[in-house]
């Protein structure tokens, strides 16, 4: 039998369909991989019993000819931001100690309904706030890729555990959430595909909220085709989320025609930031050439308000977070640290329960919403946000998609950037504008940094046009021929 953890999601689905192996076998192979890679700290909670149970149920369905679809029997990881019925949901925070929701998020329920097998809950930055997965109460996640210096590197964040689980072959796909780049940036850092769908494509119901107007769930996989298959299972209108779009879910995998001839690909000049690393510059240029070779037409476009995107994001996201996180007060669930008064209990609980980065963002958010500052910060940020969305709208009048780097650098060693929050925030410079505009974007591994670390290119699409994004991503993936494996796996071999 082939090494089951080396299969892509699509290959595994074929193998299950052909009867080459059972979901139980596939799942056991991945459970073993998860257990063998605990040094990466990709999981907060492993759920092997649930996985075996669901794999067995999948095999039973299959034996009766009742297969739910290509996800049936596929072992996946679920970011620990998705509430999962009866399973600890920590959001990477101390303050949710012991919290086992009596409900299942819509996206993870959709995956369950599609037959997916949950292996465990993936580690993440606390409340999805971070770009390096170094803010989790459950510890840092280690990138399976290493450069020649041999240093442990960050996997990116906030969906770092999900990215590592996919990259290190611990699962065939993982759910992520992307508020400012939290799917695409770790995807790029770990050499995998990360897709942030259009805001409203996947329901937010049951996902622990960070910034409600920006949060969006999406798949993280090893191939673009896998991302298409998994997104189809995750997406769909949900009456329980007022911001979920009342539109149907296309057959995303069918969009991968391999043909991008005649498509106009925008190249935004404002993304060519000062001091852009030479390897990023080269990667981007190479990407433009590859798409051109495939018959697409590169077009210079302007997104003039790009330079304000990061500042805008770091006003709006913390503002919403400061309010969203008010419910963690020690009264009803999670951690409680007693005090002599109600206020003191709040202070003690929140002081002990939230980490430094979360506290920083709550403070920023509270500040920008305060009387006397609201107009100068929050209101202005909302206006700039509208201008950024308008930039994209105009660009999409002439182009079908936009190509840009996913990150300004490759994965950096753990410890770097950690004492300078602003340097850390700069990681999001290429990803944040999409969230502000609500657009879909995919990060596809497309090359290597000077140090031999994976780098991703990002394809940005029109609202609800994930199909074009996926089709171009698929072509880019084939052209780039990225088939390197993380050094962690080579070490094992």
């Amino acid at each position, binding site marked *: 039998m082939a090494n089951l953890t080396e299969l892509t999601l699509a290959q595994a689905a074929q193998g299950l369909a052909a009867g080459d192996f059972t979901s139980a076998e596939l799942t056991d192979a991945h459970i073993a991989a998860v257990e063998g890679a605990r040094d990466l700290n990709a999981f907060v909670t492993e759920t092997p019993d649930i996985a075996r149970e669901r794999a067995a149920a999948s095999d039973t369905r299959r034996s009766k000819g009742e297969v739910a679809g290509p996800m049936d029997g596929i072992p996946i990881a679920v970011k620990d931001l*998705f*509430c999962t019925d009866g399973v600890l*949901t920590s*959001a990477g925070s101390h303050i*949710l100690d012991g*919290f086992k*929701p*009596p*409900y299942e*998020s819509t996206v993870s329920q959709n995956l369950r309904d599609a037959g997916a097998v949950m292996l465990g809950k993936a580690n993440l930055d606390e409340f999805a706030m971070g770009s390096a997965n170094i803010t989790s109460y459950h510890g840092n996640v280690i990138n399976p890729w290493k450069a020649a210096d041999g240093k442990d590197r960050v996997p990116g964040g906030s969906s770092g555990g999900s990215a590592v689980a996919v990259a290190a072959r611990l699962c065939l796909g993982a759910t992520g959430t992307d508020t400012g780049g939290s799917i695409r940036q770790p995807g790029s850092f770990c050499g995998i595909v990360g897709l942030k769908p259009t805001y409203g494509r996947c329901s*937010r*119901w*049951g*996902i*622990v*909220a960070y*910034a*409600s*107007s920006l949060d969006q769930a999406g798949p993280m996989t090893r191939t673009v085709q896998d991302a298409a298959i998994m997104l189809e299972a995750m997406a769909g209108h949900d*009456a*329980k*989320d*007022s*911001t979920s779009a009342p539109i149907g879910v296309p057959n995303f995998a069918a969009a991968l025609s391999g043909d991008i001839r005649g498509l106009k690909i925008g190249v935004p000049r404002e993304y060519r930031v000062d001091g852009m690393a030479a390897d990023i510059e080269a990667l981007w240029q190479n990407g433009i050439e590859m798409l051109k070779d495939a018959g697409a037409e590169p077009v210079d476009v302007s997104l003039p308000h790009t330079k304000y995107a990061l500042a805008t994001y770091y006003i709006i996201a913390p*503002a*919403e977070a*400061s*309010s969203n*996180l*008010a*419910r963690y*007060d020690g*009264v*009803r*669930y999670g951690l409680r640290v007693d005090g002599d008064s*109600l*206020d003191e209990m*709040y202070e003690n609980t929140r002081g002990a329960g939230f980490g430094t980065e979360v506290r920083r963002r709550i403070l920023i958010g*509270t500040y920008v*919403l*305060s*009387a006397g500052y*609201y107009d100068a910060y*929050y209101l202005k940020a909302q206006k700039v946000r509208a201008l950024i969305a308008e930039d994209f709208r105009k660009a999409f009048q002439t182009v079908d998609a936009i190509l840009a780097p996913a990150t300004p650098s490759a994965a950096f060693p753990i410890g770097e950037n950690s004492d300078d929050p602003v340097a850390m925030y700069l990681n999001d410079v290429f990803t944040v504008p999409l969230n502000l505009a609500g657009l879909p974007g995919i990060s596809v591994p497309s090359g290597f940094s000077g140090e031999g670390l994976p780098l991703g290119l990002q394809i940005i699409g029109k609202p609800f046009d994930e199909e074009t994004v996926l089709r171009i991503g698929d072509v880019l993936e084939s052209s780039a021929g990225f088939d390197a494996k993380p050094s962690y796996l080579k070490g094992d071999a």
Partner: protein
Amino acid sequence: MPWIIEGETGDWELVCGLEVHGQVISNAKLFSGAATAFGAEPNSQVSLVDSAMPGMLPVINERCIEQAVRTGLGLKAQINLRSVFERKNYFYADLPQGYQISQFQHPIVGEGSVLLDMPDGSTAEVGIERLHMEQDAGKSMHDQDPKRSFIDLNRTGVCLMEIVSKPDIHDPEEAGAYLRKLRSIMRYLGTCDGNMDEGSMRCDVNVSVRKVGEQGLRTRTECKNLNSVRFVMQAIEYEVTRQIDVYESGGEVVQETRLFDSTRGETRSMRAKEFAHDYRYFPDPDLLPVELTQEYVDKIAADLPELPDAKKERFIGDFGLPAYDAGVLVASRRTAEYFETVATGRDAKTAANWVTSNLFGMLKAKGLEIWDSPVSAENLGKLLDLIADGTISGRIAKDVFEIMGETGKSPDEIVEEKGLKQVSDEGAIQGVIDELIDGNPGQVAQFREGNEKVLGWFVGQVMRATQGKANPGLVNKLLRDKLSA
């Protein structure tokens, strides 16, 4: 007549505005499917959304929007086709989300007005500033345990309408009339039951005073959560006196929230815990703006019932009732309907008298509401018919009405059973009169000598002999004819 308070330094007047919180009548809460019934077991009507579990999202209950629009239309107010729910952020144990979802900059209803019916029959107008929708908070119970507070989240998330008046109220009586009228309108509309004792209608009172003739407003104080019309009026009167005393003794009124102590009838400063709240309002990113179409609003407007003001005008115009009586009759929709059933095709003034005096008196004595009345409107109408066609006298009718109140029977049945039919047969009455005249020559002589009072004695005798059933007009006429002969 303006309400003037004579102070030591001159005449003062009241400037007052009310903020009324009305609980919207709806089966489910504003943003969740949990039930809203009053008096349920603590924490038995709480959804995952209400208890602010992680990842839960609010979804607007369209019924609540409809009710708010209906109320706005009843207040003759501007309906804003676009309104926005915002978050009002503050920490409290009975506020699970850490914020209340409310409307702030863009309320669903704008300016309108309420016409007050004053006891002297006059009217006064109070402007409405706005009506916005918001979630109610839960209930903290501090009296269940010596050391701990308990929280009941049943009320959490129930839809409230906050109706803010302009500072047009200048008399405590007007404040009372305003609350009663607002309640009456909302009950007509079926949007709020207005039961202040159950907390489904609560009132915050903003009070300031100024010298008569003075322009502009002085510092106001606010008394929160008053739960009866009487307390509202008491709190205003107390505040007016207190504020005038402060000014006249050389002090300044402090802008603050004050607590009304209903047992002592006074307001107290809550200054002990004074800290300025900064609620950090911002649009709730979990919800889209509420966008209504004019057609939607028009459809609700077309379905509105006739409201008290229009009904009152109609009662005055069609039935010729005095303004005061009309105002009393339309205050409750059920009373108005009852009255109309009785009055239709009959003498309206008689009907109004019977409803406002006899019926109201009986209901009050029995402690019943009009919808529980043992005397149905149809039966009261039949009773009036029996008087009108001479079947019974007005005096007998009162007795019949009393029996109707006891038994719920129809007046025909009672008149039949008890043989109360008026005797209008001349021959029968003549016989009684003849006997009386023959048997009482002394009285006859007195009458003939010019003592008119004796006639009354004769009438009394005839009525006694006929157990009150003789037609009094006929008795008078026959007696006079006979005695004068």
